[in-house]
């Protein structure tokens, strides 16, 4: 009996590490795979993705039951690498693991016959390993380490195409994220000199600090927020995101939905809730700054999206705006708004990845890159366009799609917290969202298709495009519907977000 208890204890110490390694090790092998060994590379990719999914399944069940999963590695005296799974990390880990599997399938189809695939998939795996590390980080040092590795692993993906545009986009990406990384690092070191190792604890760890240090804590928050805000694309630190849409479609999905901007938004939640503590952050006046920044970003991003003709560029600005909802939800004091922000972490991910998959399909199948070229695509590619429509309507916030749930909770939470002005932001943003998505849907479904598509590519087979490209957006679009319709079911993102909020507020 005690033996099996010991065994399960040591296993629970290994699980978070195993989840990170399950994509890291296959990724390292992929670099060594010869370019033409298509099959071996795909097997390694899918093996890693599925293994990770299984491990995450075990993790979800354990965390739900209150089991503690923690892997520790002492780097040097006083500096520890800690991987710790709490409810919040599980939310992010699950999101990126599920979407990674789907994106891998999509990427295998998308990159067929294109050069440098071993390099691509190697970095792709490193990227998701770093994301999972960010999600599972149990202290600030570990978070910073994985956050920086994520920056580094994403660079080759953005630069992948090798065109002058791609090189330029990657350079801009790097300039923004590394500068942000330095700011985050300074903030983290500074905080550590004040408090010792900064572990993430639900409810925060700083509320007991003496008043004389409050000034420094505000300065540190500014540094941390500047570092995290770059990846989360908060205005005015968002400049890299529209530039890096030159990357291939699977990378855009990774940047916008699975990994990069999510790591930033997740970090903001971590800092506000598990380092400062939401009540303490409010008493320092930090929440209102964050709320103002988030609102500005929501409106500005939507406005810019309205002005873009390039489909991916429009989607990129839409991400700028939508990710700020997460920060907005996090910055309103009260569990209901928190739930709204947290659940949007997942909802934005599944909706945006759907949209990017579809944009990739239009580009690969028809050569359509601009909104103005999208007349009648619904007739040529009905399934893709259906998925696109679900994602777009969800972004606007039409029930019963997932996006509606997020907006509802954020609005409700704002009213409960007595911050009615948030409703104005939500209303304005919804109008703008409708303004940039509905014309696309109108063109796609109701305008007649042109005689010739810009660059049509006939794949043969039964479907409107290659199967590996078609199924991923259909599955994610279905997830958007399910997350909205079954929001009250056990283990839905909403239920899980409520679990987190309860633990954060100690309810």
């Amino acid at each position, binding site marked *: 009996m005690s033996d099996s208890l010991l065994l399960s204890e040591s296993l629970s110490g290994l699980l978070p590490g195993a989840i990170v390694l399950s994509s890291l090790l296959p990724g390292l092998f992929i*670099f*060594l795979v*010869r*370019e*033409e060994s298509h099959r071996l590379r795909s097997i390694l990719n899918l093996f890693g993705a599925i293994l990770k999914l299984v491990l995450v399944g075990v993790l979800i069940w354990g965390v739900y039951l209150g089991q503690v999963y923690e892997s520790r*590695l*002492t*780097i*040097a*005296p*006083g*500096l520890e*690498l800690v991987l710790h799974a709490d409810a919040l990390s599980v939310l992010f880990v699950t999101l990126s693991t599920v979407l990674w599997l789907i994106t891998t399938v999509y990427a295998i189809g998308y990159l067929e016959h294109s*050069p*440098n*695939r*071993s*390099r691509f998939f190697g970095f792709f795996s490193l990227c998701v390993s770093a994301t999972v590390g960010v999600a599972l980080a149990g202290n600030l*040092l570990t978070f*910073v*380490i*994985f956050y*920086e*590795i994520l920056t*580094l692993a994403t*660079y*080759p993906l953005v*630069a*992948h195409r*090798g*065109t002058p545009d*791609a*090189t330029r986009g*990657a*350079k801009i990406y*790097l300039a923004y994220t*590394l*500068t942000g990384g*330095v700011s985050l*690092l*300074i903030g983290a*070191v*500074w905080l*550590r*000199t004040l408090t*010792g*190792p900064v572990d993430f604890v639900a409810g925060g760890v700083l509320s007991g600090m003496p008043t004389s240090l409050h000034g420094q804590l505000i300065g540190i928050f500014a540094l941390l927020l500047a570092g995290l805000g770059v990846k989360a694309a908060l205005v005015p630190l968002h400049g890299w995101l529209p530039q890096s849409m030159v990357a291939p479609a699977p990378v855009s999905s990774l940047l916008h939905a699975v990994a990069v901007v999510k790591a930033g938004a997740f970090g903001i939640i971590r800092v506000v809730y598990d380092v400062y503590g939401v009540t303490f952050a409010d008493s320092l006046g930090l929440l209102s700054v964050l709320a103002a920044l988030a609102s500005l970003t929501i409106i500005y991003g939507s406005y810019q999206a309205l002005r873009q003709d390039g489909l991916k560029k429009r989607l990129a600005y839409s991400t700028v705006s939508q990710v700020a909802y997460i920060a907005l939800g996090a910055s309103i004091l009260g569990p209901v708004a928190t739930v709204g922000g947290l659940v949007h972490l997942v909802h934005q991910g599944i909706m945006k990845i759907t949209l990017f998959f579809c944009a990739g399909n239009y580009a690969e199948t028809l050569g359509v890159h601009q909104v103005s070229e999208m007349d009648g695509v619904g007739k040529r590619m009905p399934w893709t366009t259906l998925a696109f429509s679900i994602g777009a309507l969800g972004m606007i916030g039409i029930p019963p799609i997932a996006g509606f749930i997020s907006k509802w909770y954020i609005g409700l939470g704002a009213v409960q917290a007595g911050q009615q002005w948030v409703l104005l932001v939500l209303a304005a943003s919804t109008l703008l969202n409708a303004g940039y998505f509905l014309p696309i849907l109108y063109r796609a479904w109701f305008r007649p298709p042109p005689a010739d598509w810009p660059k049509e590519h006939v794949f043969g087979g039964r479907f409107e495009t290659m199967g590996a490209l078609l199924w991923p957006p259909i599955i994610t679009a279905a997830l958007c519907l399910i997350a909205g319709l079954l929001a009250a079911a056990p283990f839905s993102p909403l239920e899980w977000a409520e679990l987190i909020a309860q633990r954060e507020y100690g309810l």
Partner: protein
Amino acid sequence: MSAELLAFAVAVPLLGAMLAVVTVTRQGSETRASPLLNWVGLITATLTTLVIIFMTGAVWQQGPLRLELGGWGVPLGIALRADGLSAAMLAMANLVALGTSLYATGYFRSNDEALHFWPLWLLLWAALNGLFLAADLFNLYVMLELLGLAAAALGALTGSRDAVSANLRYLLVGLLGSMTYLLGVALLYTAYGTMDMSLLADVMRAPGPTDGTALVLMTAGLALKAALFPLHFWLPPAHANAPAPVSAALSALVVKAAFYLILRLWLELFAPVATFGASMVLGLLGASAVVWGSWRALRAERLKLLAAYSTVAQIGYLFLFFPLLAATPPGPAHDQLVAAVVLMALTHGFAKAGLFLAAGLVQQQAGHDRINELGGTAQHLPATVFAIALAGSSLIGLPPSGSFISKWLLMQGALETGQWWIIPVAASGTLLAAAYIFRVLSRAFGLEPTPLRFVTDARTEVPALTLALISAAALGLAAGPLWTLLGLDAGGGA
């Protein structure tokens, strides 16, 4: 028994150097290397490294080792000693040297270069080991001189006009440096009648004018050899024009040896003498080196020149620790800083060697090393570019490299002792380093055809990749043993 290892650490490479000379055969007026030459070199390299590994293990288990050569005790005889600090530096230096030797067997295509390379290289190795093990100041001087001579000769190996003139300058500067150092030693010897470091440390208590002058002279001489800004002028041309394995050794090991001596003298000998102001001078020079070296690296047109200027910058980082060490009283926080500076020196040793070895491959493949024209070549050598990327990420200080951990502790120490000015220096150094490294890396993402396999030439690429990997991952994730080896308080400086 294990104390005898100290003698072997110097004797084995010395013997190897002699053997390498003996293998030369003469045909008429022409000297030719025997096919055995590479094997003599490699076997010596392996044996020396094994000796050092056993020695490090012995220091790990038993603490410091000491050997009186010929049974003559202090103050008359020559003594060797290995404590944690020297063991750590030796382990790094010998692993780097082993990797470099392996690489050299694949790198030198011409008979002539290999012929002269091996004897000089093994001589340099012996001098390096001797320097890290020397227990008295005069012995140190001898080793320092020997190191300088071997290094300058190796640097001029290509025989090109640039290489010869740069290394002649290197030789003269090195002589000036060691003479200045010797002057300081002479002052101490007249004052105290001994040159054994541990004896001197016992008697040097009250700071007087002699001690102060000796400190200034010895530090200045060594700073010249360590290429501390503004005494770095000789380094970039000398390091950039040498053959790749030599550049790696010069940048990774030889300047590090001079730095090691400064660190050792300041920690052990001059601790009572050195004022905070003096350490501040070193710190400020270090800061200037970080900014100036990184800036010049960013502007460099050639890959190896970039790497050489990056060495100037990285040496600067090491000197940033001095004002922090001076401002921190002995205790866990002080230990933390000592370990951090050693960790940074070790990481830089591995990283810079990896970078130079990889740069040499790119240069060999392309026939030049002009960064703007490297695109196609870089893309054809995935493993080499990977080595550059890993080494580069340690130079930038990105996690999980060893220098990330050091930089974290550096900034922590700066904040704890209220020396805020170090933060912007470290931050700008990081960003500039990122800019110059990615200036190279971005060339590898072009439209050239896909390479078919990851590794092209295992004998040269694997050593470069391994050294870079040690710096970028192993040292960062498993830095803990360094604290144990240095015999420092493992409690951490929270």
